[in-house]
């Protein structure tokens, strides 16, 4: 799997797939997509890069602590859920706001979107955390 062809294609694909995963995440509320799908897409392209280039080589220049990613995601998602309580609403009550920005036009801000970002980070973090640990295991 480590031929020059796969290496070249992977290099080109990584930024494209990551951008696409972010667009899936942000578009999720109204179009196909969402945090889970975006997260899995992000995770699979990084996992693919691990396989193609080798975990040891990638770790020399790109070695994030994936545990922090899912920790952050879970914190963000829980905070979003709890934040409604601070405004006297029920747990998990969501809020919708439409904002007009120059250049972008009408933008919909949903508190559930923040929750979705939390999901995104949890999916990426936990999948790659498992992946890296299984891959690191020498026995």
């Amino acid at each position: 799997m480590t031929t020059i062809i796969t290496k070249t294609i992977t290099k080109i694909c990584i930024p494209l797939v990551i951008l696409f995963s972010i667009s899936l995440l942000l578009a999720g509320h109204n179009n196909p997509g969402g945090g889970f799908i975006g997260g899995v897409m992000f995770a699979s392209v990084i996992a693919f890069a691990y396989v193609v280039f080798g975990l040891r080589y990638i770790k020399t220049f790109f070695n994030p602590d994936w545990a922090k990613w899912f920790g952050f995601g879970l914190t963000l998602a829980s905070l979003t859920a709890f934040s409604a309580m601070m405004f006297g609403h029920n747990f998990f009550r969501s809020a919708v706001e439409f904002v007009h920005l120059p250049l972008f036009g009408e933008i919909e801000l949903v508190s559930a979107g923040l929750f979705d970002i939390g999901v995104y980070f949890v999916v990426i973090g936990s999948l790659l955390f498992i992946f890296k640990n299984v891959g690191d295991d020498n026995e």
Partner: protein
Amino acid sequence: MDSFNAITAAIFLPFIFAGLVPVMEKLLKQRVGWFAVATALTCFILIGIAAPDVIGEGHIVQGTISWMPSAGVDFTIYADGLAMMIGFIASGIGVLIMSYSNGYMSKTEDLKRYYQYLLLFMGSMIGMVFSGNTIQLFIFWELTSITSFMLIGYWRHKPESIYGATKSLLITASGGLAMLAGFLLLGNITGSFDLAAILNDPQVINAIKEHELFLITLILIFIGAAAKSAQGPFYIWLPNAMEAPTPVSAFLHSATMVKAGIYLVARIHPIFSGTEAWFILVSGTGIITMLVAGFLAFRQTDIKGILAYSTISQLAYMMTMYGYTTHHEPGIGVAAATFHLLNHATFKACLFLVAGIVAHEAATRDIRKLGGLRREMPITFIIACIAGLAMAGIPPLNGFLSKEMFYESSLEMGASLGGIFTFLIPAFAVLGGVFTFAYSIKLIDGIFLGERDKDAIPHHIHEPPMTMLIPPAFLAFLVILFGVIPSIPIHHIIEPAVSGILLETAHLHIKLWHGFTASLMMTIVTFILGILIYTKYDRIAAWQDNFNMKNPWISINYYYDRAVDSAKGNAFRFSSRSQTGSIKLYMSAMLLLMIALIAIPAAILATNIVPSQLNFDIPPYEAILLVLLIVAALSAAILPKYLPAIIALSALGYGVSLLFIYLKAPDLALTQVLVETLSTIIFLLAITKIPQKYKEKISFSVFTRDILIAITVAASVFVLLLNTTQGIVDPFASLSHYFIDNSLLLAGGHNIVNVIIVDFRGYDTLGEIAVMCLAALGVYNLIHSRSEE
């Protein structure tokens, strides 16, 4: 700040500040202990803010914050004199203990963890005593058990600490569960979990006493109290809890946490006392524990062991006195018990701190090796004498006063029972006092008097630093103060507390000298007998050792160990049989269960298994796809090598996602493609490390069995799906309509699937992502625990 807010703050402050300890440790380094001291001091002051209201005016501070109204449970504060007293003890002794710890704990220890646990414990203890409803009381109660478990097991590398911690948790937490059952019964009888509603209404109390569940409720709650205060057969956890650092033993296992059981007995005193059951249960357990624990203290060689048994015995004094009751006078011993509770907290915490100093300086706690330290540690010696003599009941120290009151109330209780009890109960009391006298003297004599053993402790011993000397010195000062001028504690602490227990204003008159009364005679008899027994001290201890060696079954520990060991063995046998590690076995177990739960009931209940009006109108491209799917599934099952089988499996997955696109479910299709990709990558990674061919030879009978299971499951799922999708069973149509109609309206999203995930069923998603995080951590632990072996 009003009293209610002050007490609420005192409960939650330690919890919040425990979270800040790691930050403060970065700033203060090894002096982080002083931050904990400041927290405890703040709690003490906050409780003090409520003091004028409760102690001065005699009010009961009450207040409620809505918590779980649907369950009838609120966060309620009930602050009477009793709660104030224990609140002051918990925070006040907390200040002294944490100051002392600054000198005691080595700088290389994990101080952060130590002070966090201490603060969490203090918060739980304060929360427990001020709890105004039983469910809240239970929660704080179990929190004290858990923090105690953490502190006993503080030195994680020592097997004895782990053993002691586990034992204490098993006994005190399961006692707490019995107590919860009792509280639920009480809630069932009265219809309320609110303590004030029960205590303030004489009719409710009468109704409880006449209820048929009265006895079982009392027994269940008392089991909780006895387990916590190490009474009756539950005493065995306290000696092992001495594995904790000595300041912890002084704080939790003598002055505060073990008093929780006594506090509970005092708290439910108005509800249950005045009955025979109360006297027999509480006083009976108390008297037996007092005598047995006092006697067993003789054979202890560890000075903390002696202190542990003496704590059990002293707690039993209080239990006995709270148990003294008659129908006409429900609280004969209440004042004495409450006074003794306060006194015991002062002199016993002081003795533990002295034990900590001795162990710290001499590096041993074995009383056979110690001796003659009075010259090298004169100040410690004086402090130890004051506290030890107070425990022995020597005038003019505070222990003398409360012991006199114990004798008085014993005489009174004996007289009201009449018959043989007139003499028996005071005799038991004196015997308990004799044992106490003997081991108190042994402590002072064994450590400080006599000859110095040069071989056991060769190096030079000196006084400890001031941080370790001032806390016990302050406690010793209190011991003298309470003894010489008893009116100070009596008027400001004991009278309000007793009023809180008896629910009527109490007036007590206690003087150091009160003439030649019967109780003074009993004290003199106690001293004479105590000196006599002390001359035979070592012989009694040797006899006990010998007896225990010959008859191991006499010890309750013997049964505890056997029960725990056999539980471990059984759990191991069960899991080694049910969890063999064979995935095939798990798979067939799951599928067989599925057959039992779905196929068999469906076959029995259904009238026609295959619906009559089937829709065979399939577009040709779907038909082709379905054929391809079947081919892929069959290949995955029968291909002989791993790699082609995996490729067939992923072909199946991609095919299913194509089907989703035909069925107009883009989200599902996208997810399916991605998950399939990821799992194929993982599979491909895994097969590079294992043999490329299936090694296992499958016999014909096993093969037939597996085929049979597979076909049955497939057939039952097939029939089930036919029935649900072909309009025979149609209960779910309305559900999806709700989401279609409301997703834009309520959640502002057009993508229903996503809106369901992040909004309508967001709670589920939160749970799922939490599970994902836990699964990731679980995988990490599995991999790393395996590589350690």
